[in-house]
């Protein structure tokens, strides 16, 4: 999936061409078939790898190298996913909700902190050490306190997701806002632009490539935060199901749960990728089809 969007940009925006017009036309005229072909082209490699892993997994269980209650067969996991789909859907929804809310709050808070840090050296000196300090505290150690304070509801999970996803947003936001070409700032000054205008039209859009790289990291971390919160005290969510399954030695459910967690993380990651394709089609990372996180 990640590859699809970048490939799209390569052919639409990055193609060498003469007159300026064709860029938008090409995007509009692309047919559904072409989209599908591109999707297939991007997906077949990971799909083959996944199938290969599935085959190895099946072979291991078929040879009964490990007892069945430790390593379930792919079939058993699939059966669990189907049989318990309603129960699993409810719990996936709970974790997804906590993760997404946590991620969005972390994005807002992280961005705000980044702006404060970049625009005020006093605040930078005050905030940076604290943010770093908050980052190095093991989040799992905070979880019990949060449960004591906020109970078994979604709040402690959301807070954990925010705490864990906040750091990459701040770091990438600061890096992005600081990456503004000094000549652009000079230019802006000769245009008589206000600080707000400079921020809105120059600094913020220019920071997006860095910021979005950080958001991709944050998105996957937010899932971790929510699940850790559920481990410590919850009566719903994928983390809760995981503990339950582990207590009952239900390895099929354990594996099914793990798969759902990773699907959740990947889905969120892909959403940020899509946002990236929409927001920064102009950026080199998009043009060259490299869709990797760097920070």
């Amino acid at each position: 999936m990640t590859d699809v969007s970048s490939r799209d940009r390569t052919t639409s925006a990055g193609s060498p061409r003469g007159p300026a017009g064709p860029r938008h036309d090409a995007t509009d005229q692309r047919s559904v078939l072409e989209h599908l072909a591109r999707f297939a082209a991007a997906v077949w490699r990971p799909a083959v790898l996944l199938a290969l892993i599935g085959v190895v997994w099946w072979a291991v269980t078929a040879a009964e190298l490990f007892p069945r209650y430790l390593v379930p067969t792919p079939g058993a996991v699939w059966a669990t996913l189907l049989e318990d789909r309603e129960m699993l859907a409810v719990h996936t929804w709970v974790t997804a909700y906590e993760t997404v809310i946590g991620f969005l709050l972390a994005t807002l808070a992280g961005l705000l902190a980044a702006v404060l840090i970049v625009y005020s050296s006093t605040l930078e000196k005050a905030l940076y050490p604290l943010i770093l300090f908050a980052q190095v505290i093991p989040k799992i150690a905070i979880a019990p306190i949060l449960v004591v304070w906020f109970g078994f509801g979604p709040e402690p999970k959301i807070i954990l997701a925010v705490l864990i996803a906040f750091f990459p947003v701040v770091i990438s936001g600061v890096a992005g806002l600081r990456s503004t070409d000094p000549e652009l700032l000079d230019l802006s000054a000769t245009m008589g632009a206000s600080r707000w205008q400079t921020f809105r039209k120059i600094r913020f859009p220019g920071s997006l490539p860095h910021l979005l790289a950080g958001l991709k990291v944050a998105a996957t971390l937010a899932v971790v935060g929510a699940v850790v919160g559920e481990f410590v005290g919850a009566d719903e969510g994928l983390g809760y199901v995981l503990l339950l399954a582990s207590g009952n030695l239900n390895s099929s459910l354990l594996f099914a749960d793990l798969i759902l967690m990773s699907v959740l993380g990947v889905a969120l990651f892909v959403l940020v990728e899509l946002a990236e394709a929409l927001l920064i089609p102009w950026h080199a990372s998009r043009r060259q089809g490299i869709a990797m996180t760097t920070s």
Partner: protein
Amino acid sequence: MQPQTAMPRNSAQPATATIEIRNLTCTFTSKRQSTTALQDVSLTVAPGEFVTIVGPSGCGKSTLLKIIAGLVQPSEGEVMLLGNAVREPQRDIGFAFQRAALLEWRGARANILLQAEMRGMDKDAAAARADHLIELTGLSGFEDALPHELSGGMQQRVALCRALLHEPPVLLMDEPFGALDALTREHMNVEMHRLWRETSTTVVLVTHSIAEAVYLGQRVVVMTPRPGRIHEVYDVDLPAERDYGTTMSSPAFETLARNIRGLLGASGHHG
């Protein structure tokens, strides 16, 4: 406005000077050392005049331009721009940088119109002016092209249009064509000359190309290596209507270029 009939030095009375630089010294202090970029520079630029500044790398000519724009504060001396002392970034100017400094996410036209947005200019008037400049600089057909889709020369043209959009009385250019290949550069010089003749803009252009300085300038200011001082100021005695090929091979051009080259070479030995 007929720049060709104006004898710059004679017509430049202090009261009507567009730019007046008085005894400018600029020292940068870093942790380890302090560097004097400019020393006791004085220069007067008359309205509508095209002044070019040549000098070796690091002679502070870019700094001089930034001081005129109010982007850098001098250590001593002062600059009067359009009758006012420069103490903060100036708005009555257009500034063109060595690199085009375009917003990567905006098309050519939108990049030009940034000027209008920041200044709160009338939208329709700005759009009309942008279209005029786009046509004038041969960018038609590339209005929506993103900077990375444009060649270096075209990017510079976009930057030039942006600098001219608000019809600034003063245009400051910091080696705007320095990053271009020789052919594109010549082409841009011809265009620049034509643009200047069509407007009444006062231009100060910094360059390290002697040919460019002589071809474009009515006066050429030659600077010494660091610390930058004004070495010599030459009046360019060439016809206002300057065909590139003819000008380049004219005896007047060759003499002047040779003099300047000699001066730069000679000062190079001392520095």
